[in-house]
């Protein structure tokens, strides 16, 4: 099985992070997977953490709150935000905040581009500062390294199989 590549652009000295990714599904299907709380719980948040979606009210002015929890240590990571713009299968604009870095609120937009049965998802994140953008990764760095090892395991398994 081939996987669609993810493109990330993060220009130095700017507080932006841009992602582009294609999906083998219609914009309606991608939108549903991104807005149905039951489905969201299955992909949002770091892998291997138990996910609790307390609220996911996708409409202009609606709130969301979710808590990934590490089953090994019991550590919880709390995230929350508000949906600003919701155009079904076209555009979502929302705020994003990790409660441990309270006040560092970023603004995220997800644009759904119809490629005729397929979808290009264009994500644009605006962090409050360059430092906040860089810290976003520092906080998850240790986990990221562990994940990259796991990913390597998966790659090896695929090539061995």
């Amino acid at each position, binding site marked *: 099985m081939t*996987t*669609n590549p*993810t493109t*990330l652009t*993060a*220009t*130095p*000295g700017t507080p932006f*992070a841009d*992602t582009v*990714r294609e*999906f*083998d*599904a219609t914009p309606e*299907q*991608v939108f*549903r*997977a*991104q807005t149905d709380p*039951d*489905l969201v719980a*299955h*992909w*949002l948040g*770091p*892998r*291997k953490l138990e996910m609790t979606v307390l609220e996911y009210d996708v409409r202009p002015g609606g709130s969301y709150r979710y808590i990934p929890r590490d089953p090994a240590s019991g550590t919880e990571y709390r995230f929350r935000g508000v949906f600003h713009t919701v155009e079904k299968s076209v555009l979502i604009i929302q705020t994003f905040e990790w409660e441990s870095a309270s006040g560092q609120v970023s603004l995220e937009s997800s644009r759904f581009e119809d490629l005729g049965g397929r979808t290009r998802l264009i*994500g644009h994140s605006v962090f409050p500062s360059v430092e906040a953008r*860089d810290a*976003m*990764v520092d906080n*998850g*760095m240790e986990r*990221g*390294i562990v*994940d*990259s090892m*796991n*990913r390597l*395991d*998966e790659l090896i*398994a695929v090539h061995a199989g």
Partner: protein
Amino acid sequence: MTKQAVSRHIQVLETAGLVTRTRDGQRRPCNLRPAALEELTSWIDTYRLEAERRFRRLDAVLETVRAEENRPAENATSANTKSNINTDNKNTDTNKEQEK
């Protein structure tokens, strides 16, 4: 390229912390900060990896959404979606086992 254009480009690199500039009479020597480049590469790697993993899980969810929509209406319940995605969780558990 004009001298002014070069200067503008270097200014962008300087703002980004990728080069530092000193003064030596009329000359303005530039020093590359490879460490800054390394920090940036590691930042991009980590961030992209996080995004990539999230998108792959979204792929898996979309697969069940598509399967559900293709099924006859009476079978297309959310219970089916959940049982399918639970299979995916089992795969994650298998990965955990392999890491031990």
